[in-house]
């Protein structure tokens, strides 16, 4: 059985930064496991720009951003197993993996960083009735077909959901000569970032219909059309508003959820809100020595945020590996208060400053105050929108005396 200090599962931005940081923090045997042929994760197919604005003060494309991290990784002694799929993980930190090159192997690690990213919600998770023809894809699959394989999925395209990948693919497919008929969003506000609405839809005259959804799929072999309906305040389709739209392709950009198979196998406590592991500010999960970062924990808006969690996870996983984190550590819960749909992390363990990522439940288009109590910190923002994560930092010193759960709320000023 192979033995390492820190094993990192997944080589997207979270895994790369975690592996680099673990090495920098002094861990000697760091192993990075990646199921694809190359490092970089989903970044490789994100050929648009907007990556690394905060972290590197540069406007990189996905592959450029990944390249920068990979170069940095190459300078370290981190060992990489590519084409290697982790199939099992136990709470005593034994990893089972398969790879054409290394066979079926078991690895024990002193600490582990989970960085498997997220997966896309599918047609069945949104439950669209109708037939089952070809031509229905999640946005990420189309992104891969177009940007990596060089193939188009179809010519007349409807996009359901206004998540960022869907918006970016609306522009990409238009540039490739396909017709994007429209983007339909069930919520009354868009899912993706404002800048993507402007740059990917408005600039290309692609209409965005809020409070609309697809209620039926038509077509036997290949998709022939979809029925669109308006929805009411409870998100139920309104009878009589059905409209048949002819199209050969339906792209789903209906949300991402953390890849949590391995977390479940290791018996890690999951947050019902984020669907990822419950973690502390040092990215440690409920299973000691197993850390989680990036989209495997919660789906972040920006790669910069992901990298930030990766850095923390790598640093503390290294500390855990050489035993400098004490075994009996205290922690308090962090709970969602008024107008908070989800937050990350969900626990505070008194090791580091607390950097909170918060998603509002309802949009507030006025100045708001974010309250973190105790210790009673207040931060002002000009608005709160569910599609833009709020980030709030509370220094470690301020939290030292806290003994009861920390509540986070977003209030109108």
């Amino acid at each position, binding site marked *: 059985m192979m033995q390492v200090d820190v094993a990192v599962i997944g080589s997207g931005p979270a895994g790369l930064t975690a592996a680099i940081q673990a090495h920098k923090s002094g861990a000697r045997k760091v192993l990075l496991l990646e*199921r694809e042929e190359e490092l970089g994760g989903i970044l490789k197919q994100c050929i648009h720009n907007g990556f690394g604005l905060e972290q590197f003060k540069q406007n990189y494309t996905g592959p450029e951003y990944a390249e920068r991290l990979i170069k940095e990784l190459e300078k370290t002694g981190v060992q990489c197993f590519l*084409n290697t*799929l982790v*199939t099992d993980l136990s709470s005593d930190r034994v990893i*089972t993996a*398969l*790879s*054409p*090159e*290394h*066979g*079926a*192997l*078991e690895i024990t690690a002193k600490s582990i960083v989970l960085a498997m990213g997220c*997966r*896309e919600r*599918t*047609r*069945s*998770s949104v*439950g669209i*009735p*109708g*037939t*089952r*023809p*070809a*031509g229905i*894809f*999640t946005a*990420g*699959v189309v992104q*891969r*077909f*177009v940007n*990596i*394989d*060089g*193939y*188009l*999925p*179809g*010519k007349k395209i409807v996009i359901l959901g206004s998540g960022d990948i869907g918006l970016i693919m609306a522009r990409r497919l238009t540039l*490739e*000569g396909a017709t994007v008929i429209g983007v339909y969003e069930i919520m009354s506000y868009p899912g993706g970032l404002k800048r993507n609405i402007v740059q990917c839809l408005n600039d290309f005259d692609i209409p965005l219909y809020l409070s609309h959804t697809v*209620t039926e*799929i038509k077509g*036997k*072999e*290949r998709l022939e059309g979809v029925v669109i309906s308006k929805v009411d305040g409870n998100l139920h389709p309104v009878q009589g508003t059905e409209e048949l739209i002819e199209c*050969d*392709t339906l792209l789903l950009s209906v949300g991402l959820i953390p890849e949590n*198979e391995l977390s*479940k196998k290791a018996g890690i406590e999951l947050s019902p809100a984020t669907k990822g592991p419950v973690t502390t500010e040092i990215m440690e999960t409920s299973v000691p020595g197993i850390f989680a970062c990036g989209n495997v924990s919660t789906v972040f808006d920006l790669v910069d945020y992901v990298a930030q969690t990766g850095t923390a996870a790598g640093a503390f996983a290294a500390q855990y590996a050489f035993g400098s984190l004490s075994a009996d550590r205290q922690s308090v819960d962090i709970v969602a208060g008024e107008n908070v749909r989800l937050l990350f992390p969900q626990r505070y363990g008194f090791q580091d400053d607390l950097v909170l990522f918060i998603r509002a439940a309802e949009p507030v288009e006025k100045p708001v105050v974010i309250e973190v109590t105790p210790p009673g910190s207040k931060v002002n923002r000009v608005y709160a929108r569910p599609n833009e994560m709020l980030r709030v930092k509370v220094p470690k010193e301020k939290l030292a005396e806290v003994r009861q759960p920390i509540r986070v709320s977003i209030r109108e000023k």
Partner: protein
Amino acid sequence: MRSDRALAREIQGEIEKTTGEKVAVSMSDGIAGLRGHLTSHQAALEAGHLVGSLDKVREVVNDIVFPGKMRFKSPPGVSEELTGREFDVVIVGGGVIGLAVARELSQFNLSIALFERHNDVGMDQTTHSNAMIHPAIQAKHGTLRWEMNYKGNPMWDDTARQLDVDFKRVGTLIVAENAGEEALLPYAVNAAIKHNDPEPKLLDRDDLDRVEPGLAPNIRKGVLVWNTGIINVFELLIAYAENALSNGVSIFLDTAVTGVQTEDFSIKAVDTTRGTVKTGLLINAAGLYADRIAEYAGDRFFSIHPRKGETIIFDKSYQPVRTVFAPVSIAAESQESKYTKGGGIIPTTDGNLQFGPTAMEVCDREDVSTTAEGCDYLFDKFAPVLERLKPGYERPDKGKIIARFAGCRAATYKEDFIIEPSRKVRGLVHVAGIQSPGLASAPAIVERVREIIRGERHPAVNDKFNPVRKRQVRFSELDLKQQDELIRANPLCGHIVCRCENVSEAEVVRALHGDVPARSLDGVKRRTRAGQGRCQGGFCTPRIVEIASREMNIGKEHVVKSEGKSYVLSGRTK
């Protein structure tokens, strides 16, 4: 005949009384023919069922026209490649029945051809079934459906063993929630004794805990009908096909039968979309189209009316029951009745729980669309029951549903199986009206067909017949050491293309080159489970398109999802 005419008039009167409308009725040899116009599909169905329920009527041919009625078109020919070939037996239909009959008859010295219109096996009823081997407690006692179910059920242990297919007797568990329901349990035992089970068991709480741990505290008594089974239905289809092939049967997929030639009321030849083949013996196992085949042969004496059933399937993380779980409240309702929406809580051999099927009469035999109503009905009916009776499991949200599907049952108006030689045409055997529980009954049905053929043709025995078939190794079922050895021998085994179900590239390649090869992404999915997990192909689709394009030697834009024009990609980017 005078009595025929009198009966026809009587029936006409009945229909007028119940539907308020006039249709023309003819009677001959016990076959009722209905003609005319009615205002709705529902009315035409009612007329058919009304006539079908009469004892004096053997079968019903329903030609009543109503708005929205579908017209049938035979598919166009594609080639003449088979013209001139001759077979002792031709089987129409590659569902479970056609394939099982093919295997059964391969124990004789007969040349056998099976034609299936789809590019894969079992694509109409069989793959859309719930894969349950019913105990004989639902079908009406005394019908052929009941008899075949009764005889077929116990035959599955041997059949599944010979064919190396996952099969498990999980039992149907009928539980009582209160004293009133407990009083009903002896009736369930009685029904089981009379029609099915030699030893049904009335269980008290201790026994219940062993069969189905974690029941709510108020449940004190139940009945276990132990012989209910579940089977891996697609593996079964492949197994029947592979075993038939290895015993000399020729299977032609993507080949539809479009006509039957007879001479002096004897079968002479069969027209297909790939040419005309000569034969003297035709077995009609065409499921939803069995009435068309009968018509081609000049022996139209029944009509098929498609009854759609929808099913929803849950992610493997929601596995609240081991048995087919039927609380008294549900079991009582699902007693045979033509119009209940029906459905049950049924586990599968793959570990995904299903709720289904519903029952809805539809016009189009090809209607396999799912509906919001069907899904809501199943979910709202069964999810609360499980929440109440198995409180250890959280009620799933609809997000746990990983797939919904629908299929049409091939029902006749007598609602019974037809397994008999044609009374008009020599060399024609009908295996028609095989709706539920046709799968459970399959071993008995084919035995009956075998005896018909044996009686008529006295075929010699094929000494080389081997009923045993071994399934391919499933990588995900091996232990680590075995996996390691396999990967060392073939590195493709270590390349996992479907991470939800741990399917390796080697398995996908094998599916594309098997004896009954996959011709589409869905075909690969059915054989390997790649794409069947919770990400529903999100991860593996691009990879499988690539492998299929490479192995089939076609451009990626020619790779299809199912068949026909179901291409996955429209072409290259600029």
